[in-house]
């Protein structure tokens, strides 16, 4: 497990992350955008690993790169009938560009001028997966939210099946 966040690793992964996100925006083929989304998820899992959050990194790989990626690819294959449908004109919105640029400027200003908290050095104590399990399933910890999360997933699963069922089969 990495004890510090290496600058070179951070730059490489940050570049991969932003490249993936920008390519999702600029890909004219929807399928290529889905593959770039996978690359973004992989790069973020790498960043989680360097933040000593290896459990979150594995979850990111399984949920985003695995489940969500396959779901997106299958939905594209169901809703586009020909190769011609998948390639589309580049969407451009000047208002969206200005709005998101302003948002980024505001956030960057807030982060760079904020007091000492965000400039803190890396603590030597590290989160551990053993403590994570103990805290998650202790009565004073996150046992109840964990159960509610599984309920949310069940409801979402049933809702997804209900929405995509064949309409004539009632």
């Amino acid at each position: 497990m990495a004890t510090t966040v290496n600058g070179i690793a951070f730059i490489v992964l940050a570049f991969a992350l932003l490249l993936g996100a920008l390519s999702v925006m600029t890909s004219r083929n929807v399928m290529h955008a889905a593959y770039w989304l996978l690359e973004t998820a992989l790069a973020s899992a790498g960043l989680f690993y360097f933040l000593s959050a290896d459990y979150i990194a594995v979850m990111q790989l399984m949920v985003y790169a695995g489940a969500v990626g396959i779901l997106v690819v299958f939905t594209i294959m169901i809703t586009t009938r020909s190769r011609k449908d998948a390639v589309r004109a580049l969407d451009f919105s000047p208002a969206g560009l200005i709005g998101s640029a302003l948002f980024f400027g505001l956030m960057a200003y807030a982060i760079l001028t904020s007091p000492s908290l965000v400039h803190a050095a890396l603590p030597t104590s590290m989160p551990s997966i053993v403590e994570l399990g103990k805290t998650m399933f202790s009565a004073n910890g996150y046992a109840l939210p964990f159960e509610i999360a599984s309920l949310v997933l069940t409801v979402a699963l049933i809702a997804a099946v209900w929405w995509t069922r064949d309409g004539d089969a009632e």
Partner: protein
Amino acid sequence: MNVGLDAFLLLSAALFSIGMYGAISKKSTIGVLMSLEIMSIAITLNLVAIDRFVTPTAMTGWFFALFMMVTSAAEIGIGLALVIAIFRAGKTSEVSDLTELKG
């Protein structure tokens, strides 16, 4: 050379802005959902980075990130199911074609 928390926060702000632009500008519903996924990746990165630098032993950020992942998995599941349902109803899934409720 080691990087601090502000580098992670800046990176995640940039990623969130890119996702926000996509969610506003994309005309295909799947494109909008992919942009929402990018935004939620940015938020998860934020939570994990703050957790590592500020509360490394309490792991509050880890739990937030995990529950965040659960809700965003539910969101993308229902979102894509809705895309398929809309496609079945109207043979299209373009945002600009969904004008039935337009006044």
